[in-house]
Protein backbone atom coordinates (compact mmCIF):
# COMPACT_ATOMS: atom_id res chain seq x y z
CA UNK A 1 0.00 0.00 0.00
CA UNK A 2 1.28 3.43 -0.89
CA UNK A 3 2.30 5.94 1.68
CA UNK A 4 2.37 9.70 1.54
CA UNK A 5 5.53 11.23 2.93
CA UNK A 6 4.41 14.86 2.86
CA UNK A 7 1.33 16.82 3.81
CA UNK A 8 -0.81 19.13 1.74
CA UNK A 9 0.76 22.62 1.53
CA UNK A 10 4.21 21.42 2.59
CA UNK A 11 7.09 23.22 0.95
CA UNK A 12 9.38 20.78 -0.81
CA UNK A 13 12.79 21.02 -2.46
CA UNK A 14 13.86 19.25 -5.64
CA UNK A 15 14.69 15.60 -5.02
CA UNK A 16 12.48 15.31 -1.97
CA UNK A 17 10.39 12.13 -1.72
CA UNK A 18 6.66 12.84 -1.81
CA UNK A 19 5.09 9.40 -1.77
CA UNK A 20 5.92 5.72 -1.85
CA UNK A 21 4.16 2.99 -3.71
CA UNK A 22 2.31 2.79 -7.01
CA UNK A 23 -0.98 4.05 -5.57
CA UNK A 24 -0.02 7.65 -6.09
CA UNK A 25 0.50 9.39 -9.40
CA UNK A 26 2.78 12.33 -10.12
CA UNK A 27 1.05 15.18 -11.95
CA UNK A 28 3.10 18.33 -12.51
CA UNK A 29 6.28 19.27 -10.72
CA UNK A 30 6.92 15.68 -9.72
CA UNK A 31 8.24 12.51 -11.29
CA UNK A 32 8.28 8.82 -10.53
CA UNK A 33 11.40 6.80 -10.07
CA UNK A 34 10.79 3.16 -9.31
CA UNK A 35 8.09 3.21 -6.63
CA UNK A 36 8.74 6.70 -5.35
CA UNK A 37 7.31 10.06 -6.32
CA UNK A 38 9.88 12.81 -6.19
CA UNK A 39 9.57 16.60 -6.36
CA UNK A 40 11.01 18.26 -9.42
CA UNK A 41 11.23 21.84 -8.23
CA UNK A 42 10.64 24.08 -5.24
CA UNK A 43 6.96 24.39 -4.51
CA UNK A 44 3.91 23.64 -2.43
CA UNK A 45 2.51 20.13 -2.34
CA UNK A 46 -1.05 19.65 -3.50
CA UNK A 47 -2.74 16.31 -3.10
CA UNK A 48 -5.96 15.45 -4.87
CA UNK A 49 -6.99 11.88 -4.20
CA UNK A 50 -4.22 9.81 -5.73
CA UNK A 51 -2.71 12.71 -7.60
CA UNK A 52 0.32 14.44 -6.16
CA UNK A 53 1.68 17.63 -7.61
CA UNK A 54 4.02 20.46 -6.72
CA UNK A 55 2.81 23.97 -7.43
CA UNK A 56 5.81 26.14 -8.26
CA UNK A 57 6.67 29.02 -5.96
CA UNK A 58 9.42 30.48 -8.10
CA UNK A 59 10.54 30.39 -11.65
CA UNK A 60 9.88 31.79 -15.06
CA UNK A 61 6.52 31.70 -16.72
CA UNK A 62 5.77 28.51 -18.65
CA UNK A 63 3.53 29.33 -21.61
CA UNK A 64 0.26 27.40 -21.84
CA UNK A 65 -2.29 27.44 -24.60
CA UNK A 66 -5.24 29.68 -23.79
CA UNK A 67 -3.43 31.91 -21.32
CA UNK A 68 -4.03 35.63 -21.54
CA UNK A 69 -0.64 37.32 -21.36
CA UNK A 70 0.70 40.85 -21.34
CA UNK A 71 3.42 41.07 -23.95
CA UNK A 72 5.94 43.65 -25.08
CA UNK A 73 6.94 44.10 -28.72
CA UNK A 74 10.67 43.51 -29.06
CA UNK A 75 11.10 42.75 -32.76
CA UNK A 76 9.22 42.51 -36.02
CA UNK A 77 9.67 41.02 -39.44
CA UNK A 78 7.62 41.24 -42.67
CA UNK A 79 4.60 39.48 -41.31
CA UNK A 80 5.22 38.90 -37.63
CA UNK A 81 5.72 40.71 -34.42
CA UNK A 82 7.95 39.16 -31.79
CA UNK A 83 6.96 39.76 -28.23
CA UNK A 84 8.53 39.26 -24.86
CA UNK A 85 6.20 37.35 -22.57
CA UNK A 86 8.72 36.57 -19.85
CA UNK A 87 9.64 33.08 -20.93
CA UNK A 88 12.92 31.98 -22.52
CA UNK A 89 11.64 32.33 -26.08
CA UNK A 90 9.98 35.29 -27.67
CA UNK A 91 6.38 34.78 -28.70
CA UNK A 92 5.26 35.35 -32.25
CA UNK A 93 2.19 37.27 -33.34
CA UNK A 94 1.37 36.89 -37.01
CA UNK A 95 -0.46 39.70 -38.83
CA UNK A 96 -3.23 37.22 -39.51
CA UNK A 97 -3.78 36.89 -35.80
CA UNK A 98 -3.73 40.62 -35.13
CA UNK A 99 -7.01 42.45 -34.98
CA UNK A 100 -5.68 45.36 -37.03
CA UNK A 101 -6.24 45.24 -40.75
CA UNK A 102 -2.76 45.08 -42.17
CA UNK A 103 -2.31 45.75 -45.87
CA UNK A 104 0.16 43.65 -47.77
CA UNK A 105 3.63 45.08 -47.44
CA UNK A 106 2.58 47.61 -44.82
CA UNK A 107 5.05 48.74 -42.20
CA UNK A 108 4.14 46.80 -39.08
CA UNK A 109 5.55 49.64 -37.06
CA UNK A 110 2.35 51.61 -37.67
CA UNK A 111 0.28 49.12 -35.74
CA UNK A 112 2.37 47.83 -32.89
CA UNK A 113 5.76 49.41 -32.50
CA UNK A 114 8.79 48.50 -30.44
CA UNK A 115 8.03 48.69 -26.76
CA UNK A 116 4.26 48.61 -27.16
CA UNK A 117 2.35 46.53 -24.67
CA UNK A 118 -0.29 44.14 -25.90
CA UNK A 119 -2.76 41.77 -24.25
CA UNK A 120 -2.94 38.59 -26.26
CA UNK A 121 -3.89 34.98 -25.88
CA UNK A 122 -1.52 32.10 -26.46
CA UNK A 123 -2.80 30.06 -29.38
CA UNK A 124 -0.04 27.55 -29.85
CA UNK A 125 2.92 26.24 -27.90
CA UNK A 126 5.42 24.03 -29.57
CA UNK A 127 8.94 23.17 -28.52
CA UNK A 128 10.71 26.47 -28.67
CA UNK A 129 7.95 28.50 -30.29
CA UNK A 130 4.98 30.31 -28.82
CA UNK A 131 2.28 31.81 -31.00
CA UNK A 132 -0.14 34.50 -29.92
CA UNK A 133 -3.50 35.59 -31.21
CA UNK A 134 -5.56 38.70 -30.64
CA UNK A 135 -8.72 37.31 -32.16
CA UNK A 136 -10.78 37.17 -29.00
CA UNK A 137 -12.80 39.79 -27.17
CA UNK A 138 -10.82 42.20 -25.04
CA UNK A 139 -7.43 41.51 -26.57
CA UNK A 140 -5.77 44.71 -27.74
CA UNK A 141 -2.88 47.09 -27.50
CA UNK A 142 -2.64 48.73 -24.10
CA UNK A 143 -2.39 52.48 -23.83
CA UNK A 144 -1.09 54.54 -20.93
CA UNK A 145 -1.06 52.83 -17.59
CA UNK A 146 1.23 51.13 -15.13
CA UNK A 147 2.89 47.78 -15.56
CA UNK A 148 3.51 45.89 -12.37
CA UNK A 149 5.47 42.65 -12.25
CA UNK A 150 3.65 40.28 -9.91
CA UNK A 151 5.20 36.88 -10.71
CA UNK A 152 3.36 34.21 -12.64
CA UNK A 153 2.97 31.92 -9.65
CA UNK A 154 0.97 34.57 -7.81
CA UNK A 155 -1.52 35.26 -10.60
CA UNK A 156 -4.24 32.82 -9.49
CA UNK A 157 -4.22 34.45 -6.08
CA UNK A 158 -4.51 37.94 -7.54
CA UNK A 159 -7.44 36.97 -9.68
CA UNK A 160 -9.05 35.07 -6.81
CA UNK A 161 -11.81 32.53 -6.88
CA UNK A 162 -13.93 33.32 -9.92
CA UNK A 163 -12.20 36.68 -10.14
CA UNK A 164 -13.28 37.74 -6.65
CA UNK A 165 -10.04 39.44 -5.68
CA UNK A 166 -9.47 41.36 -8.86
CA UNK A 167 -13.06 42.53 -9.10
CA UNK A 168 -12.85 43.96 -5.58
CA UNK A 169 -9.73 45.90 -6.53
CA UNK A 170 -11.25 47.11 -9.77
CA UNK A 171 -14.54 48.10 -8.24
CA UNK A 172 -13.13 49.92 -5.21
CA UNK A 173 -10.36 51.80 -7.02
CA UNK A 174 -12.19 52.38 -10.29
CA UNK A 175 -9.05 51.37 -12.16
CA UNK A 176 -8.87 49.10 -15.12
CA UNK A 177 -6.73 46.14 -14.15
CA UNK A 178 -5.56 43.39 -16.45
CA UNK A 179 -3.51 40.53 -15.05
CA UNK A 180 -1.59 38.43 -17.54
CA UNK A 181 -0.90 34.80 -16.68
CA UNK A 182 2.74 35.56 -17.40
CA UNK A 183 3.00 37.58 -14.21
CA UNK A 184 2.46 41.15 -15.38
CA UNK A 185 -0.38 43.39 -14.30
CA UNK A 186 -1.52 46.50 -16.14
CA UNK A 187 -3.34 49.21 -14.22
CA UNK A 188 -4.95 52.35 -15.56
CA UNK A 189 -7.03 54.96 -13.81
CA UNK A 190 -6.69 58.26 -11.98
CA UNK A 191 -3.07 58.56 -10.79
CA UNK A 192 -4.00 58.46 -7.10
CA UNK A 193 -6.33 55.54 -7.58
CA UNK A 194 -3.65 53.76 -9.58
CA UNK A 195 -1.28 54.04 -6.64
CA UNK A 196 -3.84 52.47 -4.32
CA UNK A 197 -4.46 49.66 -6.80
CA UNK A 198 -0.72 49.02 -7.06
CA UNK A 199 -0.46 48.88 -3.28
CA UNK A 200 -3.40 46.51 -3.10
CA UNK A 201 -1.80 44.19 -5.66
CA UNK A 202 1.46 44.27 -3.77
CA UNK A 203 -0.43 43.45 -0.59
CA UNK A 204 -1.86 40.37 -2.26
CA UNK A 205 1.54 39.48 -3.64
CA UNK A 206 3.38 39.57 -0.33
CA UNK A 207 0.61 37.84 1.61
CA UNK A 208 -0.32 35.29 -1.01
CA UNK A 209 0.13 32.38 1.38
CA UNK A 210 -2.44 33.72 3.87
CA UNK A 211 -6.11 32.90 4.01
CA UNK A 212 -8.95 35.40 4.09
CA UNK A 213 -7.01 37.77 1.91
CA UNK A 214 -10.00 39.17 0.03
CA UNK A 215 -11.40 40.59 3.26
CA UNK A 216 -8.05 42.06 4.15
CA UNK A 217 -7.82 43.73 0.76
CA UNK A 218 -11.36 45.06 1.07
CA UNK A 219 -10.43 46.63 4.39
CA UNK A 220 -7.21 48.01 2.96
CA UNK A 221 -9.06 49.57 0.06
CA UNK A 222 -11.78 51.04 2.27
CA UNK A 223 -9.09 52.75 4.31
CA UNK A 224 -6.97 54.03 1.45
CA UNK A 225 -9.73 55.07 -0.93
CA UNK A 226 -11.10 57.60 1.53
CA UNK A 227 -11.38 60.99 -0.15
CA UNK A 228 -10.68 59.58 -3.61
CA UNK A 229 -13.39 59.52 -6.24
CA UNK A 230 -14.14 56.48 -8.32
CA UNK A 231 -15.02 57.47 -11.84
CA UNK A 232 -17.91 55.52 -13.26
CA UNK A 233 -17.79 52.24 -14.93
CA UNK A 234 -14.87 51.98 -17.26
CA UNK A 235 -13.20 49.52 -14.89
CA UNK A 236 -15.63 46.96 -16.16
CA UNK A 237 -14.26 47.14 -19.67
CA UNK A 238 -11.91 44.21 -19.35
CA UNK A 239 -14.20 41.84 -17.53
CA UNK A 240 -14.53 39.68 -20.57
CA UNK A 241 -10.91 38.65 -20.21
CA UNK A 242 -11.74 36.81 -17.04
CA UNK A 243 -14.95 35.21 -18.13
CA UNK A 244 -13.13 32.45 -19.78
CA UNK A 245 -16.12 30.19 -20.17
CA UNK A 246 -18.44 32.29 -22.26
CA UNK A 247 -16.21 33.70 -24.99
CA UNK A 248 -15.38 30.16 -25.86
CA UNK A 249 -18.66 29.57 -27.60
CA UNK A 250 -18.40 32.73 -29.58
CA UNK A 251 -14.96 31.83 -30.72
CA UNK A 252 -15.93 28.35 -31.70
CA UNK A 253 -18.82 29.72 -33.64
CA UNK A 254 -16.78 32.28 -35.45
CA UNK A 255 -13.99 29.84 -36.00
CA UNK A 256 -16.43 27.55 -37.74
CA UNK A 257 -16.59 29.48 -40.93
CA UNK A 258 -14.03 32.17 -40.72
CA UNK A 259 -11.03 30.51 -39.39
CA UNK A 260 -10.00 28.26 -42.20
CA UNK A 261 -6.38 28.16 -41.29
CA UNK A 262 -7.12 25.07 -39.29
CA UNK A 263 -4.11 23.68 -37.52
CA UNK A 264 -2.76 25.35 -34.49
CA UNK A 265 -5.36 27.86 -33.73
CA UNK A 266 -8.40 25.67 -33.55
CA UNK A 267 -6.77 22.47 -32.68
CA UNK A 268 -5.96 23.84 -29.30
CA UNK A 269 -9.52 24.80 -28.55
CA UNK A 270 -11.88 22.31 -27.11
CA UNK A 271 -13.01 19.58 -29.40
CA UNK A 272 -15.38 16.95 -28.25
CA UNK A 273 -12.96 14.11 -27.90
CA UNK A 274 -10.21 15.60 -25.86
CA UNK A 275 -10.80 13.45 -22.85
CA UNK A 276 -9.70 10.32 -24.60
CA UNK A 277 -6.19 11.55 -24.96
CA UNK A 278 -3.28 10.88 -22.67
CA UNK A 279 -2.87 12.75 -19.44
CA UNK A 280 0.44 14.36 -20.25
CA UNK A 281 -0.92 16.11 -23.26
CA UNK A 282 -3.94 17.47 -21.53
CA UNK A 283 -2.12 18.60 -18.50
CA UNK A 284 -0.43 21.20 -20.63
CA UNK A 285 -3.74 22.86 -21.24
CA UNK A 286 -4.10 24.87 -18.15
CA UNK A 287 -6.98 26.89 -19.43
CA UNK A 288 -8.68 24.03 -21.06
CA UNK A 289 -12.24 24.71 -20.20
CA UNK A 290 -15.67 23.99 -21.45
CA UNK A 291 -19.10 25.37 -20.76
CA UNK A 292 -20.32 23.91 -17.52
CA UNK A 293 -23.04 22.01 -19.32
CA UNK A 294 -20.33 19.89 -20.88
CA UNK A 295 -18.98 18.71 -17.60
CA UNK A 296 -19.46 15.27 -16.29
CA UNK A 297 -19.60 13.81 -19.72
CA UNK A 298 -16.59 11.75 -18.95
CA UNK A 299 -16.42 10.76 -15.34
CA UNK A 300 -13.16 8.83 -15.58
CA UNK A 301 -11.16 12.01 -15.75
CA UNK A 302 -13.17 13.74 -13.10
CA UNK A 303 -10.21 14.11 -10.79
CA UNK A 304 -8.09 15.74 -13.38
CA UNK A 305 -10.79 18.10 -14.44
CA UNK A 306 -11.43 19.04 -10.88
CA UNK A 307 -7.79 19.80 -10.38
CA UNK A 308 -7.66 21.85 -13.52
CA UNK A 309 -10.69 23.85 -12.56
CA UNK A 310 -9.36 24.44 -9.10
CA UNK A 311 -6.15 25.69 -10.55
CA UNK A 312 -7.96 28.03 -12.86
CA UNK A 313 -10.05 29.43 -10.10
CA UNK A 314 -6.90 30.03 -8.17
CA UNK A 315 -8.37 28.20 -5.27
CA UNK A 316 -5.40 26.09 -4.45
CA UNK A 317 -3.39 28.31 -2.20
Amino acid at each position, binding site marked *: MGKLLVKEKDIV*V*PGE*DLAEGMDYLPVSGAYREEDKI*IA*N*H*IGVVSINGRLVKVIPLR*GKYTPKVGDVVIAKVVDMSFSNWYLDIGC*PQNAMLSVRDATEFVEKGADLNQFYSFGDIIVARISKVMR*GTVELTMRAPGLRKLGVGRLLPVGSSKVPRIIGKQGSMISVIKEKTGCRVIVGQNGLAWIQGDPKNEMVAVQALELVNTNSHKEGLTDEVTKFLAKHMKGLTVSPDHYKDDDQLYQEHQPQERRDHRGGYRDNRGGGYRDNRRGGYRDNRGGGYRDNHRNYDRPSSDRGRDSSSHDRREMRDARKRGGYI
Partner: protein
Amino acid sequence: MTTKTTKKGTKGKRLDGRGPEDLRDMDAKVSIIPRADGSAMFRSGNTVAIAGVYGPRELHPKFLQNPERGVLRCHYSMMSFSTTERVRPGPNRRSREISMVIEKALTPVLHLEQYPNSVIDVFIQMIQTDAGTRCAGITAAALALADAGIPMKDMVSSVAVGVVNGTVVADLTKEEEDVEGTVDIPLAFLPRTGEVTLLQMDGKLSQKHLKESLLLGKKVSKKIYDLQKKAIKESYHHA
Protein backbone atom coordinates in the same frame (compact mmCIF):
# COMPACT_ATOMS: atom_id res chain seq x y z
CA MET B 1 38.51 4.20 11.67
CA THR B 2 41.97 4.81 13.04
CA THR B 3 42.79 8.36 13.94
CA LYS B 4 46.41 9.29 14.12
CA THR B 5 47.73 12.52 15.44
CA THR B 6 47.95 15.31 12.92
CA LYS B 7 50.78 17.76 12.68
CA LYS B 8 50.47 19.18 16.13
CA GLY B 9 47.00 18.49 17.42
CA THR B 10 46.08 16.16 20.25
CA LYS B 11 45.18 12.61 19.34
CA GLY B 12 42.10 12.39 17.15
CA LYS B 13 41.77 16.14 16.86
CA ARG B 14 42.60 18.29 13.86
CA LEU B 15 44.45 21.59 13.74
CA ASP B 16 41.25 23.53 14.32
CA GLY B 17 39.99 21.13 16.97
CA ARG B 18 37.58 19.19 14.78
CA GLY B 19 37.29 15.41 14.72
CA PRO B 20 38.16 13.72 11.40
CA GLU B 21 34.54 13.46 10.26
CA ASP B 22 33.43 16.89 11.44
CA LEU B 23 32.56 19.55 8.92
CA ARG B 24 33.34 23.18 9.43
CA ASP B 25 30.69 25.48 10.80
CA MET B 26 28.24 26.02 7.91
CA ASP B 27 25.66 28.56 6.80
CA ALA B 28 23.31 28.67 3.83
CA LYS B 29 20.82 31.23 2.61
CA VAL B 30 18.78 31.58 -0.57
CA SER B 31 17.32 34.56 -2.47
CA ILE B 32 20.10 36.93 -1.52
CA ILE B 33 20.31 38.77 -4.86
CA PRO B 34 17.03 40.55 -5.63
CA ARG B 35 17.61 41.03 -9.36
CA ALA B 36 18.66 37.43 -10.02
CA ASP B 37 16.17 34.71 -10.91
CA GLY B 38 17.66 32.61 -8.15
CA SER B 39 20.56 33.08 -5.77
CA ALA B 40 22.22 31.57 -2.72
CA MET B 41 25.06 31.91 -0.28
CA PHE B 42 26.93 28.99 1.23
CA ARG B 43 29.58 29.28 3.89
CA SER B 44 31.79 26.55 5.25
CA GLY B 45 34.20 27.90 7.83
CA ASN B 46 36.10 30.71 6.17
CA THR B 47 35.07 29.74 2.65
CA VAL B 48 32.12 31.80 1.43
CA ALA B 49 30.48 31.34 -1.96
CA ILE B 50 27.63 33.30 -3.48
CA ALA B 51 25.83 32.11 -6.59
CA GLY B 52 23.39 33.89 -8.86
CA VAL B 53 21.26 32.19 -11.51
CA TYR B 54 19.92 34.05 -14.54
CA GLY B 55 17.59 32.33 -16.94
CA PRO B 56 16.52 30.23 -18.65
CA ARG B 57 16.89 32.94 -21.27
CA GLU B 58 17.66 33.11 -24.94
CA LEU B 59 21.21 32.18 -25.84
CA HIS B 60 23.24 34.56 -27.97
CA PRO B 61 25.17 34.29 -30.26
CA LYS B 62 22.71 31.99 -31.95
CA PHE B 63 25.24 29.44 -33.18
CA LEU B 64 25.79 28.37 -29.58
CA GLN B 65 22.15 27.39 -29.21
CA ASN B 66 21.19 23.78 -29.00
CA PRO B 67 17.72 23.02 -30.35
CA GLU B 68 17.64 19.78 -28.41
CA ARG B 69 18.40 20.98 -24.93
CA GLY B 70 19.30 24.06 -22.98
CA VAL B 71 22.84 25.02 -22.11
CA LEU B 72 24.21 25.49 -18.62
CA ARG B 73 26.96 28.07 -18.32
CA CYS B 74 28.88 28.42 -15.08
CA HIS B 75 31.22 31.26 -14.30
CA TYR B 76 33.40 30.73 -11.25
CA SER B 77 35.62 33.47 -10.01
CA MET B 78 37.49 34.37 -6.90
CA MET B 79 37.17 37.95 -5.80
CA SER B 80 40.45 39.83 -5.70
CA PHE B 81 40.29 40.24 -1.91
CA SER B 82 39.26 36.65 -1.18
CA THR B 83 42.70 35.43 -0.13
CA THR B 84 45.68 36.91 1.67
CA GLU B 85 47.36 37.47 -1.67
CA ARG B 86 45.46 39.59 -4.18
CA VAL B 87 43.92 37.59 -7.01
CA ARG B 88 44.08 39.27 -10.41
CA PRO B 89 40.45 39.76 -11.46
CA GLY B 90 39.07 38.03 -14.52
CA PRO B 91 39.15 34.47 -15.75
CA ASN B 92 42.36 32.50 -15.50
CA ARG B 93 43.38 28.94 -16.17
CA ARG B 94 42.29 27.71 -12.76
CA SER B 95 38.92 29.44 -12.72
CA ARG B 96 38.09 28.19 -16.21
CA GLU B 97 38.79 24.63 -15.20
CA ILE B 98 36.68 24.98 -12.08
CA SER B 99 33.84 26.56 -14.07
CA MET B 100 33.89 23.55 -16.33
CA VAL B 101 33.87 20.94 -13.58
CA ILE B 102 31.04 22.77 -11.82
CA GLU B 103 29.06 22.76 -15.04
CA LYS B 104 29.59 19.02 -15.35
CA ALA B 105 28.69 18.44 -11.71
CA LEU B 106 25.36 20.28 -12.03
CA THR B 107 24.19 19.31 -15.53
CA PRO B 108 23.05 15.76 -14.66
CA VAL B 109 20.32 16.98 -12.30
CA LEU B 110 18.83 19.65 -14.54
CA HIS B 111 15.97 18.98 -16.92
CA LEU B 112 17.63 21.02 -19.65
CA GLU B 113 15.59 19.33 -22.36
CA GLN B 114 12.70 21.55 -21.30
CA TYR B 115 14.57 24.65 -22.42
CA PRO B 116 15.73 24.23 -26.03
CA ASN B 117 17.76 27.11 -27.47
CA SER B 118 18.06 28.64 -24.02
CA VAL B 119 20.82 29.18 -21.55
CA ILE B 120 20.95 29.12 -17.78
CA ASP B 121 23.76 31.27 -16.48
CA VAL B 122 25.24 30.56 -13.07
CA PHE B 123 27.68 33.07 -11.64
CA ILE B 124 29.67 31.88 -8.66
CA GLN B 125 31.72 34.39 -6.72
CA MET B 126 34.03 33.38 -3.93
CA ILE B 127 34.07 36.27 -1.52
CA GLN B 128 36.35 34.56 0.97
CA THR B 129 38.39 31.43 0.47
CA ASP B 130 39.95 28.84 2.74
CA ALA B 131 40.11 25.64 0.63
CA GLY B 132 37.16 23.72 -0.73
CA THR B 133 36.00 26.56 -2.98
CA ARG B 134 34.73 24.44 -5.84
CA CYS B 135 32.67 22.39 -3.38
CA ALA B 136 31.22 25.46 -1.73
CA GLY B 137 30.56 26.84 -5.21
CA ILE B 138 28.66 23.74 -6.32
CA THR B 139 26.62 23.65 -3.12
CA ALA B 140 25.70 27.32 -3.51
CA ALA B 141 24.98 26.96 -7.22
CA ALA B 142 22.65 23.99 -6.64
CA LEU B 143 20.75 26.05 -4.07
CA ALA B 144 20.54 29.00 -6.43
CA LEU B 145 19.25 26.81 -9.28
CA ALA B 146 16.57 25.37 -7.03
CA ASP B 147 15.73 28.88 -5.86
CA ALA B 148 15.30 29.95 -9.49
CA GLY B 149 12.54 27.33 -9.77
CA ILE B 150 14.40 25.33 -12.38
CA PRO B 151 13.26 21.70 -12.59
CA MET B 152 15.88 19.42 -11.07
CA LYS B 153 15.71 15.73 -10.38
CA ASP B 154 17.76 16.12 -7.24
CA MET B 155 19.91 18.59 -5.33
CA VAL B 156 23.70 18.48 -5.51
CA SER B 157 25.71 18.50 -2.28
CA SER B 158 29.42 18.84 -2.46
CA VAL B 159 32.24 18.36 0.03
CA ALA B 160 35.97 17.79 -0.08
CA VAL B 161 37.54 14.86 1.71
CA GLY B 162 41.19 14.05 1.98
CA VAL B 163 43.96 12.19 3.70
CA VAL B 164 46.10 14.27 6.05
CA ASN B 165 49.01 12.49 7.73
CA GLY B 166 47.41 9.13 7.03
CA THR B 167 44.00 10.07 8.43
CA VAL B 168 40.90 10.35 6.29
CA VAL B 169 39.26 13.68 7.08
CA ALA B 170 36.31 15.69 5.74
CA ASP B 171 36.13 19.32 4.64
CA LEU B 172 39.79 20.31 4.64
CA THR B 173 41.04 23.78 5.43
CA LYS B 174 43.89 25.48 3.60
CA GLU B 175 46.14 24.76 6.55
CA GLU B 176 45.45 21.03 6.27
CA GLU B 177 45.75 21.08 2.51
CA ASP B 178 49.22 22.52 2.83
CA VAL B 179 50.48 19.71 5.09
CA GLU B 180 53.16 17.72 3.25
CA GLY B 181 51.70 14.69 1.45
CA THR B 182 48.06 15.65 1.85
CA VAL B 183 45.59 14.26 -0.67
CA ASP B 184 42.55 16.37 -1.48
CA ILE B 185 39.45 14.90 -3.13
CA PRO B 186 36.60 17.27 -3.99
CA LEU B 187 33.36 15.30 -4.36
CA ALA B 188 29.80 16.13 -5.38
CA PHE B 189 26.89 13.81 -4.66
CA LEU B 190 23.25 13.58 -5.61
CA PRO B 191 21.96 13.03 -2.09
CA ARG B 192 18.94 10.92 -2.97
CA THR B 193 20.71 8.31 -5.06
CA GLY B 194 24.27 8.78 -3.85
CA GLU B 195 25.53 9.23 -7.42
CA VAL B 196 28.81 11.07 -7.80
CA THR B 197 28.95 14.00 -10.21
CA LEU B 198 32.36 15.39 -9.29
CA LEU B 199 35.48 13.53 -8.30
CA GLN B 200 38.90 15.08 -8.57
CA MET B 201 42.07 14.17 -6.79
CA ASP B 202 45.60 15.35 -6.42
CA GLY B 203 48.30 13.54 -4.51
CA LYS B 204 49.17 9.91 -3.96
CA LEU B 205 46.67 7.65 -2.28
CA SER B 206 46.22 3.98 -1.42
CA GLN B 207 43.16 2.09 -2.60
CA LYS B 208 42.01 1.61 0.96
CA HIS B 209 42.19 5.31 1.69
CA LEU B 210 40.33 6.19 -1.48
CA LYS B 211 37.52 3.84 -0.56
CA GLU B 212 37.35 5.22 2.94
CA SER B 213 37.36 8.77 1.59
CA LEU B 214 34.48 8.12 -0.77
CA LEU B 215 32.40 6.53 1.97
CA LEU B 216 33.13 9.40 4.32
CA GLY B 217 32.25 11.92 1.61
CA LYS B 218 28.93 10.25 1.00
CA LYS B 219 28.18 10.22 4.69
CA VAL B 220 28.97 13.87 5.37
CA SER B 221 27.34 15.15 2.17
CA LYS B 222 24.02 14.25 3.78
CA LYS B 223 24.64 16.94 6.38
CA ILE B 224 25.19 19.48 3.63
CA TYR B 225 21.99 18.35 1.93
CA ASP B 226 20.05 18.78 5.16
CA LEU B 227 21.39 22.31 5.45
CA GLN B 228 20.44 23.07 1.83
CA LYS B 229 16.93 21.78 2.45
CA LYS B 230 16.64 23.83 5.60
CA ALA B 231 17.84 26.99 3.87
CA ILE B 232 15.20 26.72 1.16
CA LYS B 233 12.36 25.93 3.54
CA GLU B 234 13.34 28.70 5.92
CA SER B 235 13.20 31.30 3.17
CA TYR B 236 9.49 30.60 2.81
CA HIS B 237 8.63 30.56 6.48
CA HIS B 238 9.76 34.13 6.91
CA ALA B 239 8.00 35.38 3.81
